[in-house]
């Protein structure tokens, strides 16, 4: 999925055929064949044409699928579609669009987003540090696992909303409560994926490192962590997604700002288009942040790509 979108970015740029070729080991079957070396003028399909055939057409289908849903929504809202699912009170995409335009001209909307981003950044940062440390400890030490795992198994199924009363009772400020709830959401996937990755460490590689004179700390740094990295990165990406939907729950208690607060408040004020704007912003930001995490971690995983050279 990631490498495909990567390839799409590379090949859509106006490049010469020679530049497009080095990208081919990464793109796999979706890449232009070596024939791309010869000028497109000879009658062979151009690299862009080939890219479209293999990858572009699929993106077209994806976009078309989304557009179809929006069109259905518009029609259903306009005509008051009511067959078990009721569209009578649902604002049409056009209404949401014009409300969004109004929001974008004001300052409030950006403040909501800024506050939410800040909370996610703090909560996620804490979750990454603590999650990886706990995960490595659990993966390496039976003691640590026996002490920590029961807590995780017990607390993990509790939804973020259920933490709200306790968070308010335990923590001094509203801000701290919201960050705590967001942090918890991100923590569990990171801990569990890190533990899993560390436990998968290849025993032969540890033996090899020992026979090359590596200390325990060097083995952790050079063998265990890099080996667990694919799993850790998966945990970081999932953790980011969960952080965003925990944030929404946490911001129920926010008094003023935050995109979650904005959504809940719009519901209270019966501003239906704003609810949908809030939902879409949360979805969009969550996806965007997850993508950023994956992109940021890519250099750590470049060794996995066939043909990868540093």
């Amino acid at each position, binding site marked *: 999925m990631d490498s495909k979108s990567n390839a799409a970015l590379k090949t859509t740029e106006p490049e010469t055929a020679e530049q497009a070729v080095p990208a081919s080991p990464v793109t796999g079957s979706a890449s232009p064949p070596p024939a791309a070396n010869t000028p497109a003028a000879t009658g062979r399909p151009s690299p862009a044409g080939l890219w479209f055939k293999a990858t572009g057409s699929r993106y077209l289908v994806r976009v078309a699928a989304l557009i179809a849903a929006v069109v259905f929504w518009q029609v259903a809202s306009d005509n008051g579609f009511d067959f078990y699912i009721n569209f009578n009170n649902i604002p049409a995409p056009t209404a949401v669009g014009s409300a969004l335009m109004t929001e974008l001209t004001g300052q409030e909307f950006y403040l909501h987003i800024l506050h939410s981003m800040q909370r996610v950044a703090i909560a996620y940062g804490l979750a990454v540090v603590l999650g990886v440390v706990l995960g490595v400890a659990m993966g390496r030490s039976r003691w640590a696992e026996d002490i920590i795992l029961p807590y995780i198994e017990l607390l993990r199924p509790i939804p973020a909303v259920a933490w709200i009363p306790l968070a308010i009772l335990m923590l001094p400020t509203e801000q701290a409560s919201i960050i705590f709830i967001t942090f918890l959401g991100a923590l569990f996937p990171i801990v569990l994926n890190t533990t899993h990755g560390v436990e998968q460490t*290849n025993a*032969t*590689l540890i*033996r*090899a*490192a*020992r*026979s*090359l*004179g*590596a*200390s325990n700390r*060097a083995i952790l740094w*050079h*063998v265990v962590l*890099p*080996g667990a*990295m694919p799993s850790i990165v998966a945990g970081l990406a999932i953790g980011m997604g969960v952080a965003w939907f925990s944030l929404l729950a946490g911001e129920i208690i926010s008094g003023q700002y935050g995109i979650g607060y904005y959504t809940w408040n719009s519901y209270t004020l019966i501003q239906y288009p704003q609810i949908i704007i809030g939902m879409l912003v949360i979805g969009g930001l969550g996806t965007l942040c997850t993508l950023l995490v994956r992109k940021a971690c890519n250099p750590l995983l470049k*060794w*996995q790509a*066939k*043909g*990868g*050279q*540093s």
Partner: protein
Amino acid sequence: MSDAAVMNDNRLAVLDHSRLRGKGNKAGEDRGRISMRDVDIVFDTASGPHIAVQSADLTVRPGEFLCLLGPSGCGKSTLMNTVAGFVKPSRGEVTVDGKPVTQPGPDRGMVFQQHSLFPWKTVMENVAFGPLMAGTSRREADSIARTFLSLVGLAAFENAYPNTLSGGMQQRVGIARALANYPSVLLMDEPFGALDAQTRTMMQENLLEIWSEFHNTVVFVTHDIDEAVFLSDRIVVMSATPGRIIADIPVELPRPREQSLITTPEFMELKRQCLDLIRQETLNAFEQQNRVG
């Protein structure tokens, strides 16, 4: 690029001769003596204790190329792993240069059967790892790594990741990595077992060529009789269940050795000797299994 083409790469290597054995370097002359006294190795399994190795007595002289030969499952790798420090003998003692082995160490280089390179490190980072762990600066470690990569003909691949190399090339990186610490003992656990026949023969010649520079002690585990006779100064044959040393055969074939050697009568005679021993052992093992089953 094929393995054959890479093999004939010219040698740019400048080895640190003060650390090599057997180049008129008297101080290092006695490094690499392995001694096993009455070694038993017993594993606890669900169905009771399993005797992997029984009363093994063996001395490997400094600079000797010794092959441990035996059917699969006879405990030859286990026995070698006591020298590496991965396995503790249940009884008896294993010493290298008079010191009992308590843990793995860079004085005993290890080459595994396959997939033992760090996949997240480039070829050069893999080879530089040992020197780096020994406290060498990164620059120095990289220069040592380059030396050893050209020794195995892979200088052009220093920035490649292991998963882009063929099996034979990966094993050559593994050999370079183990040698980069200038170990007095080189332990090889069926290093060519997963390679195709052509690559394997080439790797054997290549290994002997490299070893002629080092002349350190080598313990080479294999179940391939041709390989054992072609490479070694001495073959120690082991029997299966329990693993015991049943023969100690000196191989007095001239060096340097080339593939033409394997058709000579002397080679054939040694091969026949080993074959008879192994066949008898395999038959015994079969009978034992049938009786149990």
